């Protein structure tokens, strides 16, 4: 069942005539690709839209980002305020403010210092979004650079990079993050760096793999035969076609980074208090899991739902971007 949206056969049968100038040839390729690519992306969006689970993920992510951006306006109270250390609060008010269950005044109740949990949850989303995006960006920059280097040029450079990637694989990421955090000291910026730096190995490996598979294609040979420089080939030909697995991994990577912050927070290395993050809230409410169990479910569910959203979107993207799965939605 040929699906005439398939980019390969848009220009049926017309093989690029090798006699053309390199620019002309690329123009032809570009026309096919642009037409192909916009069609490709349109096709990806079309398939993504039909994947209900991926859409659920996308909606949650959009909501998460909006909440993070508009946190100051959304949060009903100041996340740091507590009657406990308000000089004009009565002792009676102070005594009752701690660990109140959800009420009209505090929709999600108050924590062990009498602060409004809902406001802290909303502000906490900022840390998660920041950690997710910045950490993955760092991994991408390092990973793509070394991946391209290893994949495209091969030779001893390839084995050196791949062996060092093995080292990062062999070394448990949890302990890598702890070691880096101990060197850099506490603080959110260092959390970004720690999580980001440890993510490069996987990205490098995936990107190298997809470069190797794309490198063999004829059109890269053709472009090289036309005298195109390496950088041009990487940027114009290899990058767009080997980016799919990276997009999928990066999407899931954001979820992974949010989870990593929660891990570090349990060891006291995540976002420093009193600024709230879902990680340090979960770590702080966990000990009350028999006396006030509802407290831990609030940050816990927030973490699970947001990480889940990135996984679902990642899955959806993988299916949508995978050319072989054409038509079978």
């Amino acid at each position: 069942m040929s699906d005439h949206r398939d980019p390969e056969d848009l220009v049926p049968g017309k093989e690029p005539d090798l006699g053309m100038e390199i620019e002309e040839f690329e123009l032809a390729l570009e026309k096919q690709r642009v037409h192909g690519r916009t069609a490709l992306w349109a096709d990806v969006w079309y398939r993504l839209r039909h994947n209900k689970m991926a859409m659920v993920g996308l909606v949650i992510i959009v909501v998460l980002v909006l909440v993070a951006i508009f946190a100051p306006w959304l949060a009903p109270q100041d996340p740091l305020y507590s009657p406990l250390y308000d000089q004009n609060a009565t002792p009676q008010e102070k005594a009752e403010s701690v660990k109140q269950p959800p009420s009209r005044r505090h929709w999600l109740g108050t924590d062990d210092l009498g602060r409004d949990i809902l406001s802290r949850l909303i502000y906490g989303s900022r840390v998660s979004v920041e950690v997710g995006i910045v950490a993955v960006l760092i991994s991408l920059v390092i990973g793509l650079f070394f991946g391209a280097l290893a994949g495209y040029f091969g030779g001893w450079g390839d084995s050196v990079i791949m062996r060092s990637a093995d080292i990062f694989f062999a070394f448990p990421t949890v302990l890598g993050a702890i070691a880096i955090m101990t060197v850099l000291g506490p603080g959110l910026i260092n959390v970004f760096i720690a999580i980001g730096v440890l993510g490069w190995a996987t990205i490098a490996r995936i990107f190298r793999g997809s470069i190797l598979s794309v490198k063999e294609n004829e059109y890269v040979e053709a472009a090289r035969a036309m005298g195109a420089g390496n950088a041009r080939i990487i940027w114009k030909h290899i990058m767009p076609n080997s980016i799919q697995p990276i997009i999928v991994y990066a999407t899931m990577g954001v979820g992974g980074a949010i989870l990593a912050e929660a891990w570090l927070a349990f060891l006291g290395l995540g976002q420093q208090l009193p600024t709230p993050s879902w990680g340090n809230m979960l770590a702080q409410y966990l000990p009350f899991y028999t006396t006030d169990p509802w407290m831990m479910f609030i940050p816990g569910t927030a973490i699970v739902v947001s990480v889940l959203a990135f996984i679902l979107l990642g899955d959806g993207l993988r299916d949508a971007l995978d050319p072989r799965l054409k038509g079978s939605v």
Partner: protein
Amino acid sequence: MRRGKTALILAVFLALAVGLAMIYAGCGEKKEEEGKGGKKEGGVFKYCLVSDPVSLDPAQLQESQGIEVGKQIFDGLMDNDPKTMELVPAMAESYEVNDDATVFTFKLKKGVKFHNGRECTAEDFVYSWNRVCNPDTASEVSYHMSPIKGYEEVTGGTAKTLEGVKAIDDYTLEVTLSYPYADFVYHTAHPVFSPIPKEVVEEYGSENFSEHPVGTGPFVFKEWVHEQQITVDKNPDYYGDKPYLDGVVFKVYQDEETAYQDFKAGALDDAQIPQGQFKAAENEYGERAIFKAMLGIYYYGFNMNTAPWKDSKELRQAFNWAVDRQTLCDVVMEGQRIPATGIVPPGIPGYQANAMEYKYDPDKAKELLEKAGFPGGQGLPQLTLGYNTGVGHDTIAQFIQGNLKDLGVNFNIEGYEWGTYLDLIQGEQVTFFRLGWLADYPIMDNFLYPLFYSGNAGVDNMSQYKNEEVDKLLLEARSTIDEKERIELYREAERKILEDAPIMPLMFYKTSRVYSDKVGGYMRTPDDLTPLEMVYFKE
């Protein structure tokens, strides 16, 4: 098929909600009924130890876990009464002091045997104390013996034996100090002064003695599976009142929370109650949850060598006035801490209830801030309060931060791991810090001398506090024989220190221990220990 999926998501979330409801219902186990008085002989007590001791060698007993186990295996010349902390004779029958408090002569009880059966004589004390001060042992607690004559020479390596420790005969030990110090006899109740058999040390080698500890205490060491458990058995021919229990298993935990849950699940006979669950424990266990005043103080310290602390007494005093200690103890600590009224906690002879006049008075604090040149907090450099992670100090830090924020004074808080934290304070990189101090022995000197004597700056005196007047008072007090006079001198020193405000006293500790209803005779001493020889299983 699409509808199937969304229906399924709902099902999963429903399951989560049901799970939540079950937790609500499942909370709190059923009430046990109180057992009647019969004392049963035998049984093995499962004791909760919140981390593996570093060592069981008396020369290395420093952290509380090491002492909790060490106290059961080793006895010393004297001991503290479990309720009143008064000094009571243990292996020593009696002791005399010369008039200028420099020579102490101990008469030993006869027939006190080591666990390997050999009788313990004065010579064993000489050997043990010399071993502690020997640099090769690298003991971290030898400073308890610093008043003894010859201590500097032995620890410095210039002498082999302590000049001030002599065995007159098998049952008489004479200790000579390098300066008059009446309270020295309290030091001898510390486990580092416990005698150990020379032949066992030589058999296993000095650094391996910790793996095969032999002492004269109520329980005999049996086995140590690191990170898991330590087992001890009843000492059948113990010279004091024989233990009821057959033995004790010290179960080792890394996490207070997990240990407490194990206690609730019946896998432990006692446990530490984690911060944040005091009220719940009180409701559930009543008087079996022991919240007794402890000889310990929880305080914030300022580094007196660095700005802005060093040049403004008013600023330090303002901080003291700004803190609401009553709410901190009643609400944040759920009523299980006592608001600090000075440096020396109640229960120590010489305690004074009105040592400091600081109360919760934000206006007074604002006034002092202006006098200090920082009206409403303007002009203050970027301040950071350090604390060690993992045991609830972050909650207290955020409370104090809130109090100060109310006056416009902002500071960050940063958590560090314990080892790093101590090193950063000693290195004066962290200049505003949280610390606690538990009494080695129940005397005022044990609080004022280590923390505020200028000679101890950088050792225990983390505030680097130097004040000649206070130093003079402390040394004079140490050498005063008459107890009433001595206490008056210590009290004056305490008042002067507090007026200088190198620290912010916050709370006095309370024990937070719970024990099972199957057990009787269980109690917790003011220095947070349990004499297990008095514990028995009910019928």
